[in-house]
């Protein structure tokens, strides 16, 4: 992590000041005063965050959870059918409609090109991985989510476990959050979705037209001790691992410790909770 932050600082070319801030957090982590505080919440993006928000962002994780996910991109290369399986699992679990027209499209998790997911990581002569393979993208459940900042009704909000969720009954459909999400992870119900749900899951609400939706980290499942549907669909491949980033003993933390991981567009200071092993 330490290395990652410094890499980031170098890449983003943020001034010495930010560097100092980053180091301070690292020092604190190393000295072990708050070993359970996940790295990405403080530090390098602080100077961009509004003071109030910074407070919230810094305070919450100390006591609470911060759910996150580690995705092993290599596993998706080994099994090209896996991508389809995870998106199907999500579609079935969440009554996601499938429209014939692309214009109406709604998606929570899908496979996209490496360069689409990580536009800032360019290569001149692409290796096979970057050229051919696809990576899954879903809402990053950002620790500093721009969509929450933008929403005028608090219909999108960050739960205390770090999950960014939506209240479909409060959303007015202004789509400000869609403009604000720098990852393009939000979809809008351009028309009544109910006629386009192939297999209805009675345990999850369907939506009405005119509201926004996105991946909710399967809040309804983890509440009852289940894994997210997409993680479950990966079986024991270990392609996607879900857990509490604030728990040093969690599987996700172990993976983060053992592997070099990247996040999507880290320079924007959103602090995504989804990490990729590439």
């Amino acid at each position, binding site marked *: 992590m330490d290395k990652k932050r410094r890499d980031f600082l170098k890449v983003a070319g943020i001034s010495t000041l930010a560097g100092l801030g980053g180091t301070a957090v690292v020092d604190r982590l190393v000295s072990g005063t708050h070993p359970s505080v996940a790295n990405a919440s403080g530090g390098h993006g602080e100077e961009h965050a509004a003071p109030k928000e910074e407070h919230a962002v810094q305070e919450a994780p100390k006591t609470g959870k911060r759910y996150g996910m580690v995705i092993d991109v290599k596993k998706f290369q080994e099994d090209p059918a896996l991508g389809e399986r995870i998106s199907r699992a999500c579609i079935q679990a969440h009554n996601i409609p499938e429209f014939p027209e692309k214009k109406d499209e709604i998606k929570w998790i899908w496979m996209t090109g490496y360069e689409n997911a990580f536009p800032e990581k360019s290569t001149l002569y692409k290796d096979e991985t970057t050229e051919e393979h696809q990576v899954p993208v879903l809402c990053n459940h950002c620790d500093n989510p721009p969509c929450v900042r*933008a929403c005028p*009704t608090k219909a999108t909000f960050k739960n205390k476990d770090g999950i960014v969720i939506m209240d479909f009954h409060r*959303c007015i459909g202004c789509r400000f959050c869609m403009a*604000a999400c*720098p990852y*393009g992870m939000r979809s809008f119900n*351009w028309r009544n979705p109910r006629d386009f749900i192939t297999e209805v899951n009675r345990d999850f609400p369907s939506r009405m037209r005119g509201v926004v939706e996105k991946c909710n980290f399967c809040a309804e499942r983890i509440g009852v001790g289940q894994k997210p549907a997409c993680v479950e669909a990966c079986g024991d491949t270990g392609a996607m691992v879900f857990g509490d980033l604030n728990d040093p003993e969690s599987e996700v933390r172990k993976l983060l410790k053992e592997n070099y991981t990247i996040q999507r567009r880290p320079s924007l200071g959103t602090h995504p909770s989804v990490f990729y092993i590439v």
Partner: protein
Amino acid sequence: MFEKALKGNNYYWMWLAFLGFFVGIAVICYLRQYFYGLGLTGMSRDVSWGLYISQFTFLVGVAAGGVMLVLPYYIHNYKAFGKITILGEFLAISALLMCLMFIMADLGQPLRGLNVLLHPTPNSMLFWDMCVLWGYLLLNALCGWVILTAERKQVAPPKWIYFFVYISIPFAFSIHTVTAMLYCGLPGRHFWLSAIIAPRFLASAFAAGPALIVIMALILKRVANFDAGKQAIDKMVTIIIYAAIANMFFVGLEFFVGYYSNIPGHYHTLQYLFFGLEHHGHVYNNLVPFMWGFLILFVIGFFLICNPQTRRNNDLWLGIGCASIFLSFWLDKGIGFVLGGFVPTPLEEITEYYPTANELFITIGIWAAGFFILTILYKIAIGVEHEVEA
């Protein structure tokens, strides 16, 4: 005073009927959209705001433009604007009502619009935008009405109204600044993420708003026997010229930053808007004609309002000049700015937006409704003017 709007010649009624016709079509189209959903528009998950929000953005500017009359008249005591300040205030009212209609047309769940008030969220710029827009609307309605009533009774307006007139000035600046902040505070939308957006919005507003007022004044001179005065018009044209130059200067700076820095995020959208953006072997360029229209109309309009021959000696040329500037800046802000910002998408793809017929009719209808309201307000203002003169 409303009775003034009920008496008019045939042209007046024909004009209102003409506008009413488009309003009627828009109502039908809106009902279709209401019952089907926003899928009837050309918007998609990649271009999630379309004509409605871009018209809204432009019209906030037109509303703010009225302050270019209010400020010189009330702060600098520039007497020549005395007669037409009311035109600016009433234009602001109708532009703001158009803004609100566009917002309502754009909401996926319009009946829940009040949620913005029920769950006030100060960290959302949309919340603040709503506050300042309503504030400015009420201020203009109040000031316009009180001052017009006083004029009709041929007494000086009550002192307390000046308090509201003065706060309406910072409000005018704030409506467009906050509207710019809807865009320029979003991470990852590079075209919008520029500190110059707010000043650029203000500059183009202070050109487009007064340009429309000049056009209105020229029309009213012919059809309603209302003379704004040569001096007032000439001063307005000067304001338009400077504001238009400022806007073009800011646009030029965007180009410099984008192309000289050569950072893809900073020039991709400009490339898309003005030259077409190549992506996987396909050139996407559906907005290019509009943006060149913006530049060409600017040059034409600028020449017509600068050249003393066309500016001072011929109302028709002056009117065409102002109309060109207005249209030019409409293309810039009311088309290019909002739609361009969605290209490329956060996933480095390109989706082009084409409005549907239903969406176009709603858009036209809201403009027509705005001009309907404007006509009635101007009719009242001029009726009072004539009554006082008589």
